[in-house]
């Protein structure tokens, strides 16, 4: 009995001593962190003076604030390199301010993760910061009730105007999001070697594109056009990329369609998008089993020259870099051709945005704002680029793409300034639940463009009615 009591006492002493020492080291740890962060700031200041004037406004970052003890919850649906890049950004911010960031991974499927966020908004269970779709889709989450209004923050000038426009509520002037990653440009990625060997020219019309396909099929074993239709995203890209020509034909198409003033089949450009998919199938220019071809396999085949062309977005280059990095410069880019060479242009996807919870607790508010500000600075972009090579523009002022960006991405970016439009989803959120299935059926010859558009219209009408959009 005596022995037991002694042991308990001894144990208690050890525990309490351990407690002392840990709190002691904790204190010194904080001091060290403070020193470190100060050092980091001085380092940053010298860096800032070295870089251009545009960045002087960024020196106020976090005002040297110390957020030790604060934990932020951040939810996003990105995977792979992009997710790693975010982690690098968060780690840099943690080091700078001493706060802790817990990342929660949502489903990588866009519809599914949006659904999760909406359910959590309705149940009052939103994270502090999350990645949200922007443009017309912002409305789904009732931003005025759920998202922190960033208008009035000085650092908003770091974000380029075209991005700020689509995250701003025109009526109230509220600004909701900062760009999370890079923009995406859609078009045709082609293998330069195949084009060189067969002496092909870059097609500027859809007829010339089909003629190239014919030559490739006739004179080589190469598959003319990869068609990775196995996923909902893969099957929609060609069709969605056509939106540049739709808005070129009628700049107000999306708005008019949302207000039910026009129908999809009335737009010739819209119909041509379906026809293009159907053409590739009908003439047999695609691979044997499009429905089992994954995006990754298609991009490797393109790099290897087993297929000549692939209609997709610039983010494919990150996949190529990862899986076939040494062949990255075999790939070039040209816009999806349409009627004539004068009207050529590209459709873009804007990066999803980081948004903050409107009902955030007071002690976290400052930290959240500091993080959002940090994410718009070149320091954050540097951290991002340590993990992945960007495949599009960051939509930030004073941040340029690094030198190691692939040539295909540079070519695609050059079209953004010349002739581009964001895709339809940024202007109208009407989209039925069967869009991907219908497009799969067009791409494998089950539906003609006319049958498909009739079904898309019917499917979209249900979606619009369910959303309670006026006029439907």
């Amino acid at each position, binding site marked *: 009995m005596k022995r037991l009591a002694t042991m308990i006492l001894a144990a208690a002493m050890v525990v309490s001593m351990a407690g002392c020492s840990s709190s002691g080291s904790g204190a010194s740890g904080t001091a060290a962190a403070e020193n470190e962060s100060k050092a980091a700031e001085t380092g940053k200041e010298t860096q800032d003076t070295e870089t251009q004037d545009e960045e002087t406004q960024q020196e106020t970052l976090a005002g040297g604030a110390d957020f030790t003890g604060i934990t932020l919850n951040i939810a996003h649906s990105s995977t792979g390199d992009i997710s790693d890049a975010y982690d690098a950004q968060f780690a840099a911010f943690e080091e700078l301010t001493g706060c802790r960031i817990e990342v929660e991974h949502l489903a990588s499927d866009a519809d599914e993760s949006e659904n999760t966020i909406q359910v959590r908004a309705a149940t009052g269970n939103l994270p502090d910061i999350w990645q949200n779709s922007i443009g017309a889709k912002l409305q789904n989450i*009732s931003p005025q009730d759920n998202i922190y209004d960033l208008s009035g923050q000085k650092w908003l000038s770091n974000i380029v105007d075209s991005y700020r426009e689509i995250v701003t509520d025109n009526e109230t002037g509220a600004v909701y999001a900062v760009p999370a990653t890079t923009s995406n440009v859609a078009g045709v990625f082609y293998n330069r070697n195949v084009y060189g060997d067969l002496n092909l020219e870059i097609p500027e019309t859809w007829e010339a594109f089909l003629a190239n396909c014919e030559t490739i099929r006739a004179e080589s074993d190469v598959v003319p056009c990869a068609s990775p239709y196995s996923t*909902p995203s893969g099957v929609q890209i060609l069709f969605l990329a056509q939106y540049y020509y739709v808005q070129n034909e009628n700049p107000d198409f999306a708005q008019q369609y949302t207000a039910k003033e026009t129908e999809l089949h009335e737009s010739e450009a819209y119909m041509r998008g379906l026809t293009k998919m159907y053409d590739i199938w009908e003439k047999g220019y695609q691979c044997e089993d499009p429905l089992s071809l994954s995006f990754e396999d298609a991009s490797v085949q393109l790099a290897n020259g087993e297929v000549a062309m692939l209609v997709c977005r610039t983010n494919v280059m990150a996949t190529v870099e990862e899986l076939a990095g040494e062949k990255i410069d075999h790939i070039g880019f040209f816009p999806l051709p349409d009627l004539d060479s004068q009207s050529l242009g590209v459709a873009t996807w804007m990066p999803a945005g980081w948004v903050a919870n409107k009902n955030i607790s007071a002690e976290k508010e400052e930290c959240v704002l500091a993080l959002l500000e940090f994410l718009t600075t070149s320091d954050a972009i540097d951290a991002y680029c340590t993990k992945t090579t960007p495949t599009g523009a960051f939509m930030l002022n004073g941040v340029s793409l690094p030198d190691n960006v692939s040539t295909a991405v540079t070519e695609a970016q050059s079209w953004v300034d010349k002739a581009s439009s964001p895709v339809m989803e940024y202007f109208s959120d009407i989209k039925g639940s069967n869009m991907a299935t219908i497009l799969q059926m067009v791409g494998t010859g089950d539906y003609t463009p006319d049958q498909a558009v009739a079904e898309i219209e019917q499917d979209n009408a249900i979606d619009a*009615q369910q*959303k309670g959009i006026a006029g439907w």
Partner: protein
Amino acid sequence: MNRKRYPIWLAIPGLLIYITIFVIPTFASFYFSMTTWNLKTAVFTGTENFRTFFTMTSTRAALINTAIYAVVTCSAKVIFGLLIARYVCSGIRSGNYLKIVIFSPTLLGNVVIGTAFQSVLEPTGIVNQALSAAGISAVRFLTDKSVALAACCAIDIWKGMGTAVIIFVAGLSAIPQDYYEASAIDGATDLKKFTKITLPLIVPTVNTVLTLSLIGGLRDYDLIYTLTGGGPGYSTEVIGSVVYKLFSRGSYGLATAGNVILFAIVSVIVFPLNSFVGKWEERL
């Protein structure tokens, strides 16, 4: 004479849980199925959602596919499940080992199975490699419209067989051995024993397996969704996957209506079936 009962308040905790997690959500979903609902505001639209649901192209395909899928998987599980159970209970030495092997797929999640079979069945997967070694040209199991639903059924049967066999094994071992011994003395053949003793006495177990696997088959969508996503086209779309797609597009009202319809279909089929088999059981 007054029969002594437990005081009513003893039931309250259980009742409360039952009401909050079952009764209230069920009736709430009946209400929301008649609205357009964005999780915050619900606008009452009467029976509009139900009409819309049946006008969708995907639903028409889904109703037929769900029926085929449920009937095929359910009957296969009952017939083959009984035969396999009869075999593993026949006193063979590997009986226990076989039970474990047959039951093990049941332990895997549907999504795991779906993802695994996706790679097994792809055009260059091991099944097609085996086929090509045997000189048979590759089959596009999951992307050919005429095969995809059959492939999904086969995988579900493989997965669900374990449960059916285990229930049948329990049923079979509950039959007293005396009957078999008595019939053996009277000179009954194995077939006679099976049809005259085993079958009549196993009917309650058949009823259980039939009901469980039919309900499972009607409601199943996760396995199919991971295998094919409802495709190619609408060829493997089932009611569950239609509802899932509607939910993920934010059409909560319409999706709930789909769920209510599924609930009604399951009830309309399963309750009469259950009482029918029950009566058959009494007659035997």
